[in-house]
């Protein structure tokens, strides 16, 4: 739109300039014509010739009593030169163009006749009378020519004047047009500039407000984060405190129950013994539960300050397998480990916790003699650790929530657990720049896969799909 306006303005100015040039050229043409001043000169020449005819007639009228008086002859010569002037060069060209050539020719003819007549003395009345007659005719012709030239000259002057005023008018229109268009354009430009300045001011103000807002938000977020962190600390210390506070009494209960079972003697009835066993088992469960809570709090606290170092994931896996095998000698664990070193940068305690958690889960949620498959693989710069069991599996509607804290799938409620293990494992893996994922089918089994970036790498750079663990199947 604005572009079109500019184009229109430019076109207008261009046409006015063209008009200006046209008018100027016209004026120059008229000026040049005036410079030549041919018309004026021709009028003067015809007037002079006419005048010389009259001079000759005056000379004739003055009488020639004195033969030495050569006035007539002199006047004739001058007249001759005058008429000759009209019949030569630019003068004749002018009369020809104006259509007066026949008059000039006639004047020339009469002049020649007069010249011939003067060659011999005009002695008789007849020849004198004829000479006068011819002179009068010549005077008539020259007067005609003079009048015609005068008229022509005046007409041309008027035309020239008209042309001049036309050109002047055009010039004026062009100048006014250029001025007006220029003023309009200047106005447009000015208003544009003003608008631009306004927009810029507004933008600056907006930017200032925005920065202020961002600062405010950042501050608010920081505060919220701080509050949350404090809340987390409080929560954790609460858990730790409570667990510690409970631990001792529960231990005492546990211990007493155990002692009563072992040393009850004969005085103890079967019923009482059964009751102690139940107390003992309940206390043991409670102890384990609190142990898990304390572990969780410990690891949670540590997760914030993980100490990184170069590790071999293979070694970690082997250690974890050793522990699990020792704890559960009845279970078959089939390991398929990558022989090479699996360099990873991370915290050994935290990563071991992840491995142990996944292995323990596999043991816990499946039953002998179904084997547990464990594998490690190095794929490009990504290291994978897979644990596959043939246990209860995770219901499909629970799979999304399985890594949430305190979440427990509905089909495992009868088994002991707090619902923090997988959540912690997820946190630790993510903290190491890795991904933990699950594929599972209820009643068939589950496969947990941990993918970690090899030392110096980042898993997302490799375009690793989070849930792809096809290599871990079978």
């Amino acid at each position, binding site marked *: 739109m604005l572009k079109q306006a500019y184009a229109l303005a430019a076109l207008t100015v261009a046409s006015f300039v063209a008009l200006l040039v046209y008018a100027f050229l016209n004026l120059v043409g008229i000026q040049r014509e005036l*410079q030549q001043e041919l018309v004026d000169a021709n009028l003067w020449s015809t007037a002079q010739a006419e005048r010389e005819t009259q001079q000759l*007639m*005056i000379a004739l009228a003055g009488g*020639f009593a004195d033969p030495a008086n*050569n006035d007539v002859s002199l006047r004739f010569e001058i007249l001759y*030169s005058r008429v000759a002037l009209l019949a030569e060069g630019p003068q004749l060209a002018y009369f020809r163009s104006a259509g007066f050539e026949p008059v000039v020719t006639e004047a020339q003819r009469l002049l020649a006749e007069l010249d011939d007549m003067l060659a011999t*003395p005009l002695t008789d009345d007849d020849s*004198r009378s004829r000479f006068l007659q011819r002179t009068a005719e010549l005077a008539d012709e020259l007067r005609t020519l003079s009048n015609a030239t005068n008229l022509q000259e005046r007409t041309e002057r008027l035309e020239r004047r008209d042309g001049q005023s036309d050109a002047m008018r055009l010039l004026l229109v062009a100048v006014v047009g250029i001025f007006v268009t220029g003023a309009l354009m200047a106005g447009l430009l000015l208003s544009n500039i003003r608008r631009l300045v306004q927009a810029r001011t507004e933008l600056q103000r907006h930017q200032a407000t925005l920065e202020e807002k961002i600062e405010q938000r950042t501050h608010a977020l920081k505060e919220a984060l701080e509050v949350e962190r404090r809340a987390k600390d409080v929560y954790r210390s609460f858990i730790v405190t409570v667990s510690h506070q409970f631990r001792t009494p529960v231990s005492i209960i546990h211990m007493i129950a155990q002692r009563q079972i072992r040393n009850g003697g004969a005085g103890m009835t079967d019923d009482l013994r059964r009751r102690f066993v139940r107390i003992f088992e309940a206390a043991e469960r409670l102890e384990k539960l609190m142990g898990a809570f304390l572990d969780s709090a410990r690891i949670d606290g540590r997760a914030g300050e993980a100490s990184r170092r170069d590790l071999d994931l293979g070694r970690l896996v082997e250690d974890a397998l050793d522990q699990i095998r020792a704890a559960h000698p009845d279970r078959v664990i089939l390991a398929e480990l990558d022989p090479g070193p699996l360099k990873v940068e991370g915290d050994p305690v935290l990563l071991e916790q992840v491995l142990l958690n996944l292995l323990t889960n596999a043991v816990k949620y499946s039953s002998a003699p179904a084997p547990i498959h464990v594998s490690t693989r190095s794929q490009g710069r990504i290291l994978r650790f897979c644990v596959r069991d043939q246990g209860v599996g995770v219901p499909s509607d629970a799979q999304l929530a399985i890594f949430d804290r305190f979440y427990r799938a509905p089909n495992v409620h009868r088994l002991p657990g707090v619902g923090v293990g997988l959540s912690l494992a997820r946190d630790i893996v993510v903290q190491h720049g890795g991904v933990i994922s699950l594929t599972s089918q209820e009643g068939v089994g589950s496969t947990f896969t941990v993918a970690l970036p090899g030392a110096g790498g980042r898993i997302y750079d490799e375009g690793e799909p989070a849930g792809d663990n096809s290599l871990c199947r079978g």
Partner: protein
Amino acid sequence: MTRHPRFPDQLARSDRRMFLAAGLAALGLPRIAQAQLAGRPMLKITAPDGTVTELDEEGFARLPWHEVTTHTRWTDGPQQFRGPLLRDVLELAGAGEGVLQGRELRMTAMNEFQVDIPASDAWDFRPILAREMNGRTMRIRDKGPIWLIYPRDDIAALQNPVIDERWIWQLVDITVI
């Protein structure tokens, strides 16, 4: 520039029959030969101090002549003119450059036409008092005997109508004013 028609216009409009009647008697005279004109002084020069110098054909011929080939406003094509420099004629009449400083020359033709030109023209543009045109002595009917010719083609400043008005022909009198 001044033009001085000697006769008022009304004369032209008066009854020319009067002249016809009066002139009948005069025409018995023989035609005056060109040679008779040549006997008279051709040019009269009046210096600022009133000194009058008359030049006849011979006096004219004694001065060094120069040639100017130029276009004129009244003719077609270049024309060749010959004659003494106006400057030389003025100096001969005792009107040198110093004397003429800031003055004008009133030039008068046979038909009483007059034009005033700056005296400095004689030195600035070196016009000639042409006596010959294209190798032929100019008669009165050829704008002779003397035609003031400026070297128009050689000097751009001369190619304008104002200067063209100074080209007086049938020149008979120069008076310093």
